[in-house]
């Protein structure tokens, strides 16, 4: 019961804020709507019993990546008046109806296949002991998925060096 209320409230908020992100003209308003949307997604992760992921979502996505976007939006907007940012939109009602039709098709396929195969879903045996979301995730990350973990850290190092080199004024 609580999950139903939480899911519907959060999904309305997430989709509404996502529509705001995509349609609002002022880029700063768009970024703030994105932050709110990410916070609602983090709340959805808590409903899905993945609290470590919820906190990581707030820490990395909402508190790091979107701050970066906000900085860049402000640096780009610094010497221009707001009226110059009217970008002509390639929006047409036919396109929106087509997107809605595709979404209905995908939703129909998902619901149909879920209802058909609900009895044949088997859960693979979980090898790690059940301790709590953080401990289980940490166990998996450091034993089975150690190589992707190390590669991800090398990737972040490369991205850091690349971003500094690209954004520096004089090298």
């Amino acid at each position, binding site marked *: 019961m609580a999950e*139903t209320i939480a899911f519907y409230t959060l999904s309305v908020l997430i*989709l509404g804020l*996502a529509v705001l992100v995509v349609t609002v003209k002022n880029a700063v308003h768009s970024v703030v709507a994105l932050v709110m949307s990410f916070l609602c997604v983090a709340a959805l992760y808590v409903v899905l019993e993945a609290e470590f992921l919820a906190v990581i979502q707030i820490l990395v996505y909402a508190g790091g990546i979107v701050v970066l*976007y906000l900085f860049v939006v402000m640096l*780009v907007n610094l010497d221009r008046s707001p009226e110059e940012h009217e970008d002509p*939109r390639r929006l047409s009602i036919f*396109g929106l109806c087509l997107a809605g039709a*595709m979404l209905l098709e995908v939703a129909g396929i998902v619901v149909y296949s879920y209802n058909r195969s609900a009895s044949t879903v088997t859960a693979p045996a*979980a090898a790690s002991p059940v301790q709590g979301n953080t401990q289980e995730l940490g166990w998996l990350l450091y034993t089975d998925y150690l190589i992707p973990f190390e590669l991800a850290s090398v990737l972040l190092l490369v991205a850091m060096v690349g971003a500094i080199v*690209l954004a520096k004024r004089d090298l």
Partner: protein
Amino acid sequence: MMEITPAHYTVLSAALFTIGVIGVLVRRNIIIIFMAIELMLNAVNINLVAQARQVENLVGQVFVVFVIAVAAAEAAVGLGIILAFYRNKETVNIDEMNVMRW
């Protein structure tokens, strides 16, 4: 409709993904396009976490951790490119980013 099944989460994820795709195709400001790409990545994350709870295997959540890490790296480098381009051409409208066209 009263009980929330993983199909509900997948439909939510599909709707969020569609909104992201519309954002990428419709908007001309490149920073808004990047933000719509982040929306798409979040849609995929929601789907992964919901399915991970369904099959009770945490591999889905491990995947989400890596998606978040890669999204952070991509955002940093992408915004660096945007800043470098803006310093040269003073625009963020992707219709005007056609320097290498023939």
